[in-house]
């Protein structure tokens, strides 16, 4: 479904990611592991069209997307929940959700249906639908970011560190929800530092180090890999 082929991205003279190859198949959950600054978010920004690769190609279902603007990429079915959520803080929860459905703005009935589905997945968002997004707790804001992304009915969802800054119990719920979203038909590419939780729901993973992918394999293989265990799982 999604292919990154030898993608390199630069910020000025600094090469943030180098010759990255990633493949995500339909229906999978794929996880990107690695420390802060290893290049996971840059990879996401490149897929979303916020950054143009210096070298290499990004393909969605064999269609080149690396030179398309961000709004076109959303229209093609890739949506991103960024690490800092990028909500509209002074808009209400419901208004944020509605903006998530921007690309479907002409299909009012479909939007209503999707809204219902998302509220069913995150009932707390329904309770808080009239509150400004900025007033929600961290966990609720993360749910809203995911909910807003779901409103565009994506084929592929990019989730950048959804567990960051959340309490352990909330993290567990978050991963349950991600599994649920995947089961309902959305392919997921997930960046995480919480390797244990991420690998337990993922099909396969890539490990980043200093802008390179150093290890890749199925979740089982990564769990079994001694170095990965030491560096990211801690057991």
């Amino acid at each position, binding site marked *: 479904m999604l292919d990154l082929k030898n993608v390199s991205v630069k910020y000025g003279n600094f090469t943030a990611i180098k010759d990255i190859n990633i493949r995500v198949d339909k229906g999978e959950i794929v996880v990107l592991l690695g420390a802060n600054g290893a290049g996971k978010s840059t990879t996401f920004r490149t897929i*979303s*069209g*916020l950054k143009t690769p210096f070298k290499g190609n990004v393909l969605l279902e064999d269609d080149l997307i690396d030179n398309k*603007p*961000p*709004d076109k990429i*959303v*229209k093609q079915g890739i*949506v*991103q929940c*960024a690490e800092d959520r*990028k*909500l*509209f*803080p*002074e*808009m209400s929860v419901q*208004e944020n959700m*509605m*903006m*998530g459905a*921007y*690309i479907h*703005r002409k299909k009012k009935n479909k939007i209503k249906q999707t809204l219902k589905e998302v509220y069913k997945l995150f009932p707390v968002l329904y309770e808080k639908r009239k509150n*400004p997004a900025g007033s929600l707790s961290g966990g609720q804001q993360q749910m809203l970011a995911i909910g*807003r*992304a779901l409103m*565009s009915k994506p084929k592929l969802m990019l989730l950048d560190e959804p567990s960051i800054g959340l309490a352990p119990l909330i993290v567990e719920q978050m991963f349950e929800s991600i599994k649920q979203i995947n089961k309902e038909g959305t392919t997921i590419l997930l960046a995480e530092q919480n390797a244990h939780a991420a690998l337990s729901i993922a099909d396969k993973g890539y490990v980043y180090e200093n802008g390179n992918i150093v290890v890749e394999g199925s979740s089982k293989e990564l769990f079994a890999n001694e170095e990965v265990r030491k560096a990211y799982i801690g057991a």
Partner: protein
Amino acid sequence: MDVLLQQLFNGLTIGSVYSLVALGLTLVYGILHIPNFAHGALYMVGAYITYTIMTSLGLHYLLSILTSIIAVGMISVLMERLVFHPLKDSTPIQHKVAAIGMLLFLESFAQLIWGADYQQMETPFGQVIDFFGLTVTMQRLIIVITAVVAMILLYLFLKKTFTGATIIAMAQNREGAHLVGINTNKVAMLTFFISGVLAALGASLTSPINLVFPSMGHLVILKAFVIIIIGGMGSIPGAILGGYIIGFSESIGATYISSDYSDIISFALLVIILTIKPQGIFSKGGV
């Protein structure tokens, strides 16, 4: 008592114009994240275009306003495309320099075409009418009604339509807007268009009771800055409320203190309000 009511109505008139100008400024602030210094020049150009269409083509005042607001809306969009868009990855100081450059350019341009003389704009609504016991000119009544209608329409557009909401969304989080699939170029152009329309509307409405000249935008834009600082940068209710606060205090101040000081009042208010509430009145509220 009569004097007070009369002055309150005058305040409502001036406040309506200030609010229109400040609204455009605050909307564009959401896109540029700097105050657009050239906004006052758009205001001035709006007045001149209305004036020229009336005098040279002989069109009706209202029809001339309509033409003028569309023309200035287009000029504003052109300014975004040709000046601010190419600078989108540069620092705020470069935006500010560009905005001041546009201001100087438009003013010199106006002086070249229309000369430096003061012009008087005629209005077909000069008649004096009795309005709930107040003696007012029809023109002032039209200013208030048109401004309020324009503000209500703008509010409904921003709150009730997807397209309008994109303006708010982009102001609150530009990358967030990208990530939900909003074409931010289109939003920027739309915002500049609306801002130009509001400036030209304000100028054309108020010109028959003031005068038209190349630097007519200076004081108005300074006050619009005061208004959006008082109301909270980027806040829409803040711009409206701030406009009326300044309008009322000026007209009341002119009567009970001295008309010589009416322009100082808004700046004194700025100092007082910012001392009490440094973030502005609506800093956290938004729309």
